[in-house]
């Protein structure tokens, strides 16, 4: 790159070079896949080629594959279920974490149970939840809750527990009111860990939703994906996988990423 080139062009070039450098494997794989599709080297019963995948996407979006319904409907349903289960998990998780951090007695009572339940995969609850809540909305929401709540509890507990003692001493010395202590000191001080718990819980909940819909629902992206498998349609399965990956990445990047930039990255190094 020449030093006299205008800054804009050189930055663009630099960006392109870097992207190429960092994404070479992905780009290479995509090229191989497209080339193999063009030469009809991949049997569609094993992995969809480019044309099939594109057609499947269009068909699913427009709802042409009758039994499978419309992709957009599934996306919305999955999203709504996730929002419901996750909000409950966030509310209850933060509350429990806060209670544990404020009282060592509560912590001593809850921690052993938490240690016991945390390692149990959210989806292992599926058979039980199906029996209690039946197949459908409630079961999926409960399963998302059960998957997402544990890291949130731990995040809140760690966040509120690890507030440096000096912060509280400063508050006492300056005579800060209870309201000021909670709003301006305790919450912001706990926020980084609390937030990382929420973010981890988001990932866990999102992973659970697919499995939960596969087993315990008749709508949603997970259900569509499972049906794709049963209908022996690799193209449908792959579309489902891509949609899920995009949804989760979008939520993580845009919702949590933005919140983190706004609330934490400004001051935390």
């Amino acid at each position, binding site marked *: 790159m020449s030093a006299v080139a205008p800054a804009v062009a050189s930055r663009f070039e630099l960006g392109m070079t870097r992207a190429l450098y960092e994404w070479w494997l992905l780009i290479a794989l995509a090229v191989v896949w497209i080339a193999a599709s063009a030469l009809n080297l991949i049997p569609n019963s094993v992995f969809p080629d480019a044309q099939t995948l594109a057609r499947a996407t269009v068909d699913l979006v427009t709802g042409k594959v009758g039994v499978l319904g419309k992709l957009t409907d599934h996306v919305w349903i999955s999203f709504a279920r996730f929002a419901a289960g996750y909000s409950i998990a966030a509310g209850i998780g933060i509350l429990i974490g806060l209670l544990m951090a404020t009282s060592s007695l509560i912590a001593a009572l809850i921690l052993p149970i938490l240690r016991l339940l945390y390692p149990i995969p959210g989806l292992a609850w599926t058979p039980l939840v199906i029996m209690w809540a039946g197949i459908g909305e409630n079961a999926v929401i409960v399963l998302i809750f059960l998957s997402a709540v544990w890291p949130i509890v731990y995040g809140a507990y760690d966040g509120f527990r690890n507030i440096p003692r*000096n*912060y509280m001493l400063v508050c006492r*010395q*300056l005579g800060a009111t209870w309201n000021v202590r909670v709003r301006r000191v305790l919450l*912001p*001080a706990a*926020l980084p860990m609390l937030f990382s718990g929420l973010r981890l819980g988001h990932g866990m909940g999102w992973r659970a939703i697919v499995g939960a819909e596969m087993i315990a629902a008749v709508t949603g992206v997970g259900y569509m994906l499972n049906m794709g498998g049963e209908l022996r349609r690799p193209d449908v399965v792959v579309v489902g996988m891509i949609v899920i990956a995009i949804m989760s990445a979008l939520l993580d990047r845009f919702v949590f990423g933005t919140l983190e930039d706004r609330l934490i990255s*400004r001051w*935390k190094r």
Partner: protein
Amino acid sequence: MDSPASPPMIEIENVTKVFSTQDNRNLKTIDDIQLSIAQGEFICLLGPSGCGKSTLLNLIAGFETPSAGIVACAGKPVVAPGPDRGVVFQEHTLFEWMTVSNNVSFGLTCNPDIRARFPDAAGRTQACIDLVGLRGFENTFPNFLSGGMKQRAAIARSLAPDPAILLMDEPFGALDAQTRFIMQNELLKIWQTTQKTIVFVTHSIEEAVFLADRIVVMTKRPARIKEIVKLDMPRPRNINDPMLSDIKSRLYDSMASESVMI
């Protein structure tokens, strides 16, 4: 001990502090300390690490209560922490999520009584920031400041509610030698401008000799007063002063007998 001319600002009378440990043993950290500190005096508490200097400071601040004896400030016994006694710690002092100016104004806005006392909180905040030499960094977050600047901000915050007493717990202990020297000079300037009474905990002989009116040397745990060294030299002090080197030599021997070498 010679009695100060004006009535004492801080009076520590036969104070003992005993902590009970987890296995129900009693640990005496401070043993029968008697000390009175005059208004406007600069006192350094000097002693080996973990000897109970900080406990004594916490007793004055009101974070701890004595097991026996009385601590009084401005004639009133200390029962709780209060804005009349500003505290500066070694670390974790600034609220990371607040800018410098929000940190400094925190003490002026955190309860209604204080808010009534300082109607012009913004002006007072700016004055304190200027005093510690942080003008231009009002909107910077603490994590983007150097160690020395962080401590400047912490000093400004504790000065904001205009306390009569400043309690400092090894405030420059985490800074490098150069910065520490600059900060010591800065602190003396602030002390001379504001006329506060300062109690400063340190384990550095050099620091104590450079700063203090009186150095209170403490024994290892349980802390007692080993000796009190009075320094009359004017400031800024010249480290070349042969008087100072004699005192340093003496303090070194005094301290060495109290610490366990590795």
